[in-house]
């Protein structure tokens, strides 16, 4: 009775995960989808605690289990409630690392359970299959944990990019060594060499660190998404280990979805995944900034002129970028939008797919500032409208509006879809300086006659703009 009830719990869990993910794909149902998956997870967890039995024996150690659950819930709730919206990506990375570590620790304990069999030399083929999943869970989980921690550190600025000569070769060598080591251990495991398992664990941690370290901070979203799918696979290994369908479905679903999401992110940046992972793009190319032939004179605009320019326009499109996120200027931005609307100006936002720190991040930030969902336009929509737009205000975005992506085949960003802001009548660019953006290239847009530069921190500049428009 208990066990068949548990099977039903797992079935419900698996189905809620699938439907939950599906509902997450529409803005109206997304929130319910998330809650549905959470409900399914709760059922699966409590089903396991109270109904699981193996050869007629129920689970024990309830104080430990509930202690862990309560402690984890309290810390998780506090962390998730307190985190700032701009710090969301690193929070996701942190939680992802926790899942990876959990998978790796499970492997460590399960390996310990097999240790006495190993010592007695009583391993059968069935045990080898179990060992294989234990090894996979350990390696993938450990890599995901270590990598996520580095990604977390990079996003909040605690860890700098670090690369040494031949690092890629060394990484490949290390990965090969881990895999061969695991294979060798699997074949020959006996009482004398089983301590090598822990060496394998340590090597996987080192690999996770070295794998993420050379990748530029701006590429972290791609890396987090990739590690997210790794953890999914590590969880699925647990599914094999315990013949547990809900772990398997949940893990593989995330593994597959995460991989696709990673590829989608790369596509939006017009780069291949290999390029992100091996190229250590952020580190190497930003140093050797490509000098475009666009260099020349740019003109500055004063706050007052910019305010007048926008207040008397019919239609203004705001293009938010990474700079807006860093300056945390989303609230002031919304204020500016309301102010302009009061003056009868039509205001919308054009969101490039990779604006901000991860795809969709900019939408979350603007939503936090109460910007209405229907004011946000996706790239294709916006590109149709720039031609009828009086003023485009670019806030800390650079590469996503660089016309070189369309016109200059030699440019590293050539082919990337961009927001075609140069079709508008006037372009005002707010940036902190003339420094090139993340791709390390000049932007010809800034030197066009219709473009004016408004230097300064996005938040400060917007505040001044708001008070200026107020006094008009």
């Amino acid at each position: 009775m208990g066990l068949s009830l548990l099977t039903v719990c797992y079935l419900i869990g698996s189905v809620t995960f699938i439907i939950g993910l599906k509902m997450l794909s529409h803005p109206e149902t997304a929130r319910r989808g998330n809650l549905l998956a959470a409900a399914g997870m709760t059922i699966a967890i409590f089903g396991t605690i109270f109904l699981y039995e193996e050869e007629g024996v129920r689970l024990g150690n309830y104080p430990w289990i509930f202690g862990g659950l309560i402690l984890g819930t309290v810390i998780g709730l506090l962390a998730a409630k307190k985190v700032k919206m701009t710090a969301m990506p690193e929070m996701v990375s942190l939680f992802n690392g926790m899942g990876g570590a959990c998978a790796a620790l499970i492997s460590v304990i399960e390996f310990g359970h097999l240790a006495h069999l190993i010592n007695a030399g009583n391993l059968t083929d069935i045990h080898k299959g179990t060992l294989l999943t234990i090894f996979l869970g350990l390696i993938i989980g450990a890599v995901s944990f270590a990598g996520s921690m580095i990604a977390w550190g990079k996003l909040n600025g605690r860890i700098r990019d670090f690369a040494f000569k031949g690092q890629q070769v060394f990484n490949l060598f290390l990965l090969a060594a881990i895999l061969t080591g695991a294979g060798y251990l699997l074949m020959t495991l006996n009482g004398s060499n089983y301590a090598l398992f822990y060496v394998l664990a340590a090597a996987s941690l080192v690999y996770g660190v070295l794998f993420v370290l050379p990748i530029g901070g701006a590429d972290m979203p791609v890396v987090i998404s990739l590690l997210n799918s790794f953890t999914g696979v590590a969880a699925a290994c647990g599914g094999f280990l315990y013949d547990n369908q809900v772990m398997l479905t949940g893990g593989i679903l995330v593994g597959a979805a995460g991989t696709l999401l990673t590829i989608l992110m790369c596509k939006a940046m017009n780069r291949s995944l290999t390029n992100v992972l091996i190229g250590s793009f952020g580190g190497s190319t930003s140093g050797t900034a490509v000098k475009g032939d666009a260099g020349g004179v740019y003109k500055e605009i004063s706050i007052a002129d910019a305010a007048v320019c926008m207040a008397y326009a019919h239609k203004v499109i705001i293009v938010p970028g990474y700079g807006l996120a860093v300056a945390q200027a989303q609230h002031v931005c919304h204020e500016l939008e309301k102010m302009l609307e009061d003056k009868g100006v039509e205001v919308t936002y054009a969101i490039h797919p990779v604006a901000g720190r991860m795809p969709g991040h900019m939408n979350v930030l603007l939503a936090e500032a109460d910007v209405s969902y229907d004011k946000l336009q996706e790239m294709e929509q916006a590109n149709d409208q720039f031609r009828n737009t009086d003023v485009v205000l670019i806030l800390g975005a650079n590469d996503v509006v660089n016309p070189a992506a369309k016109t200059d085949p030699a440019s590293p960003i050539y082919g990337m879809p961009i927001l075609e802001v140069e079709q508008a009548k006037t372009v005002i660019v707010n940036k902190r300086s003339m420094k090139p953006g993340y791709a390390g290239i000049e932007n010809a847009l800034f030197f066009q006659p219709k473009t004016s530069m408004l230097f300064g921190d996005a938040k400060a500049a917007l505040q001044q703009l708001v008070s200026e428009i107020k006094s008009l």
Partner: protein
Amino acid sequence: MDSILGWIQTHIEMIYIVILSIFLGIEVIGRVPSVLHTPLMSGANAIHGVVIIGAIIVMGKVEPGNYAALIIGFLAVVLGTLNVVGGFVVTDRMLEMFRKKK
């Protein structure tokens, strides 16, 4: 060779689940608008927290005297719970903002 075939034989249902889930995962995510990518990633992140179930099983099977395993298992339960609870709550917070209109 025999051992590999035997392993496939005993896990054939699981292997079916894996293959179908891969296609399902790709299919379900394929239609997500880029606006929702961050919440989706976060939601998926919470779902792989299902690994907590493995931690609970492992924890519940440890003999009460085995403190090393108890402590590691306890840690696994805490980390897994963090992943689940934190993941779902963060996702909910993100999505809550999308709902507010006007």
